[in-house]
């Protein structure tokens, strides 16, 4: 596998696809769609190859040598004057147990989303070009190990997303789009400042022995690299690390989205077209939590440990609050949106535990939520395509009208409720096990468990409102799902069930890295009190 630039390909295949799409005349809609489908398909294949060559025993996180599929090229190296040393930015990508699940998820979801974009008919060319750009950016975020690179990809996402929501969205699309854009931008500009601050706080030794500032995650993770007086250096008695951490965290929290920064999500989801909702919920939200795990945790271990409880607290708030608000929704899509607010809460709770089980659960939950929520939004899309309404009270008795659809819906819903033997259960259980093991989080965890109950409440209620009871006259004509929709649902369903029965398939991928991360944290934390599992 060595030498074969698989991560680069994963990231830039969509870009190539985009170029082809742009080259094609706008009339050839079919071809454009097939090009997109092809490039996402290639992505999936590459992701599978990646997985098959992935060494489960390599930890990654902070050791360069145990990262896999590394590609590191000089990108920018400027030998400045005496005042600003050497500016050095590498094109540095690599994969470990943290990123591989996300890479798989991204590839999968992009593919599914392409399928569900099939009935887009408004300025197709633009849509798919932006779609592929978005795809590339997402993949880039998950593979890059250089803060600068990471930031470029992170920002690169905004504009395509803005247009995808803003042009192909629903009635209040402009509002939703700009809201999404502004929120995320506010988050990311602070990330920029933190990035520069970190840059000036740590140096790496170059080949020629000279020291140079660095954007390299791995360099930033190593205490030894920090300067005495760096603005964000732990050795600097009055450093701004805490403020920086909070700024960075808010940047990520907005993406998660964490209460109270979550209000962009329902709007964005309700207005966005189905495939974009799928991408948004399936992948974009994960970037927040991924960023925290990849950046905040290893670079600021001490602060992470100090505020872990608050992360857990907000996780709990997300769980309960999201569920309760979802309970009150009358719009199917809004309900799902809030449910994913609730589900991302589990991820935060798990991360807050700083334990192997907890973080394993969190990452696994990220993956599962990706698949499950994607499926849920596809489900909304199916019914919306046919009925052109999402009002929960407009339906009823669909179970006889669309039995197969109902079957898939049931699977997805119960997966979201966390029914054992479906993937959602395992991750949530692990999150709880992990968080419960930590003395400080125990009470929070008990309250969070209410989420299971509320989740069942709103999901089953929705199930009843949509599918049970008598079928209204006007829906007598609704068709059951067609081949294309089968093609979207079946893979997701299989994954959900398979991972429910054999979670190790996914857990083994991340386990070593998570252990490494926990190890690394505990080594770098004074007054350590990691208890339980």
């Amino acid at each position, binding site marked *: 596998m060595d030498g074969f630039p698989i991560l680069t390909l994963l990231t830039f295949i969509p870009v190539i696809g985009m170029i082809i799409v742009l080259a094609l005349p706008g009339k050839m809609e079919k071809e454009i769609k097939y090009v997109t489908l092809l490039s996402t398909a290639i992505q999936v294949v590459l992701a599978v190859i990646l997985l098959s060559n992935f060494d489960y025993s390599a930890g990654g996180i902070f050791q360069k040598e145990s990262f896999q599929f590394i590609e590191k090229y000089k990108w920018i190296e400027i030998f400045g004057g005496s005042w600003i040393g050497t500016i050095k930015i590498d094109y540095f990508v690599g994969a470990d147990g943290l990123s591989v699940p996300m890479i798989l998820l991204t590839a999968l979801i992009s593919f599914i989303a392409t399928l569900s974009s099939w009935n887009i008919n408004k300025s197709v060319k633009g849509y798919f070009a932006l779609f592929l750009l978005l795809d590339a950016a997402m993949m880039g975020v998950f593979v890059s190990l250089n803060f600068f690179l990471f930031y470029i990809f992170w920002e690169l996402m905004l504009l395509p997303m803005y247009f995808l929501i803003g042009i192909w969205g629903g009635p209040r699309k*402009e*509002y939703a789009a*700009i*809201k999404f854009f*502004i929120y995320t931008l506010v988050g990311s500009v602070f990330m920029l400042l933190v990035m520069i601050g970190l840059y000036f706080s740590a140096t790496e030794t170059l080949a020629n022995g000279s020291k140079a500032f660095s954007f390299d995650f791995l360099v930033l993770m190593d205490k030894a690299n920090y300067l005495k007086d760096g603005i964000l250096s732990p050795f600097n008695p009055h450093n701004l690390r805490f403020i920086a951490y909070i700024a960075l965290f808010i940047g990520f929290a907005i993406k998660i989205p964490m*209460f*109270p*920064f*979550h*209000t962009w999500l329902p709007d964005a989801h309700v207005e966005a077209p189905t495939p974009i909702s799928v991408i948004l919920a399936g992948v974009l939200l994960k970037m927040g939590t991924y960023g925290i795990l990849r950046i905040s945790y290893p670079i600021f271990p001490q602060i992470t440990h100090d505020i872990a409880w608050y992360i857990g607290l907000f996780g709990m708030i997300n769980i309960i609050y999201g569920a*309760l*608000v*979802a*309970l*009150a*929704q009358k719009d199917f899509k809004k309900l799902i949106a809030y449910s994913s607010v609730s589900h991302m809460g589990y991820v935060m709770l798990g991360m807050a535990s700083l*334990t*192997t*089980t907890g973080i*394993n659960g969190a990452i696994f939950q990220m993956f599962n939520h990706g698949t499950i929520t994607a499926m849920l939004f596809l489900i909304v899309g199916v019914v919306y395509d046919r009925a052109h309404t999402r009002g929960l009270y407009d339906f009823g*008795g669909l*179970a*006889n009208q669309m039995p197969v659809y109902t079957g898939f819906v049931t699977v997805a819903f*119960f997966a979201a409720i966390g*029914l*054992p*033997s479906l993937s959602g*259960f*395992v991750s949530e259980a*692990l999150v*709880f*096990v992990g968080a*419960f093991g930590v003395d400080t989080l125990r009470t929070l*965890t*008990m309250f969070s*468990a209410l989420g*299971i*109950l*509320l989740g*069942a*409440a709103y999901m*089953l*209620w929705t199930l*009843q409102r949509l*599918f*049970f*009871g*008598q079928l209204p006259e006007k829906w007598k004509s609704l068709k059951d799902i067609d081949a294309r929709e089968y093609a979207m649902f079946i893979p997701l369903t299989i994954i959900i069930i398979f991972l429910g029965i054999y*979670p*190790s398939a996914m*857990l*083994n991928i991340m*386990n070593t890295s998570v*252990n490494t991360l*926990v*190890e690394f944290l*505990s080594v770098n934390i004074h007054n350590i009190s*990691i208890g*339980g*599992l």
Partner: protein
Amino acid sequence: MNDIILINISIITLLLPLFGFGLIILFSKRFPKLYMLGIGLLIVNFVLAVILLYAKLSNFLTQDINFQFTWIDFGNVPYLGNVHIDLGLKIDNITVIMLFVVNLISMLVHIYSLEYMKGDKRFNRYYAYLGIFTFSMIGIVIANNLLMIYIFWELVGLSSYLLIGFWYEKKSAADASKKAFITNRVGDLGMFIGILIVFTTYHTFTFDSIFEQISNGVLPFDSNAWLTATGILIFMGAVGKSAQFPLHVWLPDAMEGPTPVSALIHSATMVAAGVYLSLRIFAMLTADAMLVIAVVGGFTSFLAATIAITQNDIKRVLAYSTVSQLGYMVMAVGVGAFQYAFFHLITHAFFKSNLFLGSGSVIHAMHHEQDMRQMGGLRKKMPVTYAAFIVSSLAISGIPLTSGFLSKDGLLAGSLAFAHLTGHWLLPTFGFLVALMTAFYMFRLVIMTFHGEPRNKEKYNHAHESPFVMVLPLIVLTALSLFFWYTPNPVGPEQGWFLSEWVRPAETVVPQETRFDFMKTTGEEVSGHSAGAVVFSEEYEHAMHWAHIPTLILSLLLGGLGILFAFVIYHWRKIDPDELAEKFKSLYLFSLNKWYVDEFYQATFIAGTLKLSYLLSLFDKYVVDGIVNGTAFVTRGISTVSGIFDKYVVDGLVNFTAFLSGLIGLGFRRLQSGRIQTYLVLVIFSLILLLLFFEPF
């Protein structure tokens, strides 16, 4: 006959129904007769269960079979070393007996449904659901660890949800199924937390290693109180599934499902799973936990019985009697009458499913009429059903020669002995009152249904004995409701092989100071089983002996009395029930309305949650959005000066920050008046300001 084969057999019994479920769900469209497969598989399963039963009980192997494998492996976790989550199965006598019961009743129901459900448009789906239920139930039975039990626990919840809501066109059915699932979830919540505590403490889910560590003195958070709490929390799962107070409300509503389902799930097997769980964790129950359990059980049985007296829907009466009987079993667990709890579980499974199937055939005959006030005089029309009903009713009322007598008598004696030793006289009081009421309402049911004159003529005229496939199960179960299967001596269960050989007395491993006195390791034990584990001390045996005779007499007396009352009131009409109702109107209504528990929940928890969620959604819409981006303010702004705002605010200046910046911008625009001299004045002015600002002293 070595373990491996048995393990494989039990795994096959587990997976066959699932296999059936999968096939039927996937291919039912193509092969409409696929349900036959489901039945076939169940028969095979039953045979396997019999093999297991035989192999295990006929002393081919005396020790239990344990088999487990690693499900999730966390490798070498920092500070904790190797952590992994195991699943596995344990086959002991209790297991095989449960397996037998489950498979038998499930098979019978499968057959029975052939006729009962005939012509339903989701016939195949029905069998698929039965299949997945059987699968999950077997899973619970053979699990050797809490996690697996929880997993299958939820799965039976799912299948019960699907089956209760099988006729989801009916709103009542849909509601009932939802209610069942969510109510169960409440219990499961406690159970889940209990499991979390266990895993946090012992890093394993497997019963044996948990018990071993407990007997080695490892306690959750090093406190007896937490051990008690853990026990109670896990028991909450049982409260949910076995419909104990305060979570009993779902079971009566669950009768919305097809009657065979009620027979299989909501009387015989699934609801018994709660009791089964409490038996499984019996070893780690402290005295306080047991007391709680006993009180819950006792009160539940009393509550349910009082309600059952006044119900008129035949299935509801049975439902409440089920709750009441389950309460018995739970109480038995609580008072330490371990064997009798299990014994009653088995016997009750038979006669109660018999009753339900019987009522099913009645309902079938009456064209889905469930109101007893529409029935009457059916005994001539459907003799077999009648016979089955009589036997089972006698059994449930604890009349000798029936299985029910044996088990019920035993657990009442247990409660009496318990009271004698610990002074909790309330429990036996409950017990015997319930015995009285049970006999009364059961025969009230029998009389109203089969005796007297038919109240609804034309329905009566169409009524007829059910076809063979429906009668056969009745016969089988009736037979099983008689005593000789369990013991040669119709009044002395403890001589029977069931109690003396198959079901071992309970053991407990909790620390000495947390046990009842009569369970402490003081004095010589009757027969010590595993190390550290303890059976009851001698005095308990004495107490049981002491309790035996009075119980026998008392229960006979009360049972007879109950039956007598029933005949007096409903058959010979010596007392008019309506007058009685009038006389004790408040009591009557109280019972008729099930103690208003549902109403209470509706008014408090459900309404409360909905209200809260509604308020929160408003909060989210206005306040949170407001605090973060002030739409609260802007929206009002928009509504007032909508005209201008559409242009600017909706134009991307979506939120307060933007609104504010808009205002600032507006302010700046004021300055830009277009008059050159204004500009110049401003420049001069600001220059002067700057000068004042920068004067160096």
